């Protein structure tokens, strides 16, 4: 049985475990999702699984009524027309600006060259942040391991998400600035938010109580 007759977009990856635990507490049978990481659509449970960054796409289009994804994803895709209903509290992490340890090469580049190069998977968050803090930055968008970019001289700094800071440390990087904190959020499609208002409100109440 699905939750309140709604279709929920579930993020695979770091948020999956906490999301499924929450669904268990709401009485949703998640055993099939847990045991099968290739299947994507679980019609009986009303669940669809996908990358966290795809959740706003499906929810905005109404292919899922509601979804769970990180605030980092929502900030990067700020133009999506979705309602942000609830801070679920799990999956805490920070968006940070980091460079190699020792002298700060980004500050040096900024002082002498007038611009610093920054690699990130979050080009919009990074561009907004440096614009807001009055610094010129050339944003280099990468898809894979961002930590590699400053070690090879591609850039002077990176903007990335970190939970514990271990990966940064292991690559000899230090956090210079904290940009934002992020946790998992419950989002809703704007049309479902009206047409299924009662079901969505009941779900929000049940999650608050869970």
């Amino acid at each position, binding site marked *: 049985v699905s939750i309140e007759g709604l279709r929920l977009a579930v993020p695979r990856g770091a948020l999956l475990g906490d999301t499924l635990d929450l669904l268990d507490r709401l009485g949703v049978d998640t055993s099939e999702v847990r045991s099968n990481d290739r299947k994507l659509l679980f019609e009986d449970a009303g669940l669809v699984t996908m990358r966290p960054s795809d959740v706003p796409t499906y929810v905005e289009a109404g292919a899922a009524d509601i979804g769970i994804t990180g605030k980092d994803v929502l900030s990067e895709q700020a*133009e999506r*027309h979705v309602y942000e*209903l609830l801070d679920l509290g799990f999956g805490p992490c920070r968006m940070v600006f980091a460079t190699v340890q020792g002298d700060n090469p980004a500050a040096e580049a900024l002082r002498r060259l007038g611009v610093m190069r920054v690699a990130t998977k979050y080009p919009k968050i990074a561009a907004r942040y440096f614009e807001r803090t009055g610094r010129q930055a050339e944003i280099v968008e990468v898809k894979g391991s961002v930590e590699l970019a400053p070690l090879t001289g591609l850039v002077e700094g990176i903007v990335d998400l970190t939970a514990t800071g271990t990966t940064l440390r292991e690559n000899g990087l230090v956090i210079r600035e904290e940009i934002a904190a992020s946790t998992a959020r419950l989002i809703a499609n704007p049309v479902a938010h009206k*047409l299924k208002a009662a079901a969505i*409100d009941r779900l929000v109440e049940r999650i608050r109580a869970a």
Partner: protein
Amino acid sequence: VIHPIPSGTRDVLPDEMRELRAITEAIRGVFESSGYGEIATPALEYETVLTRGDPRAADPAYKLFDEHGNVLVLRSDMTIPIARVVATRYASSEPPLRFCYFAHAYRSVRPQRGQAREMLQAGLELVGAPGPDGTAEALSELCAGLDAAGLENYRIGLGDASLYRRMLDRLAVPDGARPQILHELVTRDFVGLAREVEAHKHEELVRVPQLRGGVEVLEGVPEAAELLAVHELLEPETAGRVIFDLGLIRDLDYYTGAVFEVYDAALGAPLGGGGRYDDLLGRFGRDLPACGWAMNVERLHIARVGEGR
């Protein structure tokens, strides 16, 4: 050979055109029988005229220069052009005035979002009929138009563009805190809204804009008196379509009172919307209350197909 057209624009071929035409003809019949006269205005307007109506009206549109160096803009909706027509061509006519249109409007798009740059709108403007009666008439015409277009499962979200601002006034929320609070509301972020209003200790500020449902959600909200008055004037079949939504936000600044959007479960985005803009005509020199709406004809078509018709 492939000769491209701009993203967000499209060609319409006969099969689709026939279906679109059936929708617009059905709606035109409704307008005609209710005394709404069809008008057409130029797709190009002077920028100075559009920004008189709404400073942002020319912002997302396409601009070009004419041979004298004047800035021309492709209209982003029909409401401001019709306000201009009323003030210039109907300067002394006895209100109310009833107009309808079937016209293309132009918006800028964000890359790779599949949004339309050019969209066909069907809409009406009721000028000189104040709320709540004028609002009720516009809503009743809206239902008649959607019924004629062949939609069965649509609903109308009805809210008030001034409701939250009036509530901030009543609760004496300081001016300095308001831009950030309104930003959270406009960006539909209730987590951010709860954070911003926490210091002001009024649970209404986060509870009321999340109220959606029947007329009972208006109870205990003093700012909803106008919506209640509209509800009392609605015919039962129209009232049955309405979902009151006290957090409803439209993205244009000229709305002053009741605002509405049309939803259909077949589509993840509204089919169109409208509302009251009682100050707009005054900016063009004829101070009349007004109300109107526009439906996106292509979305009506998608919803109709999605409903299985």
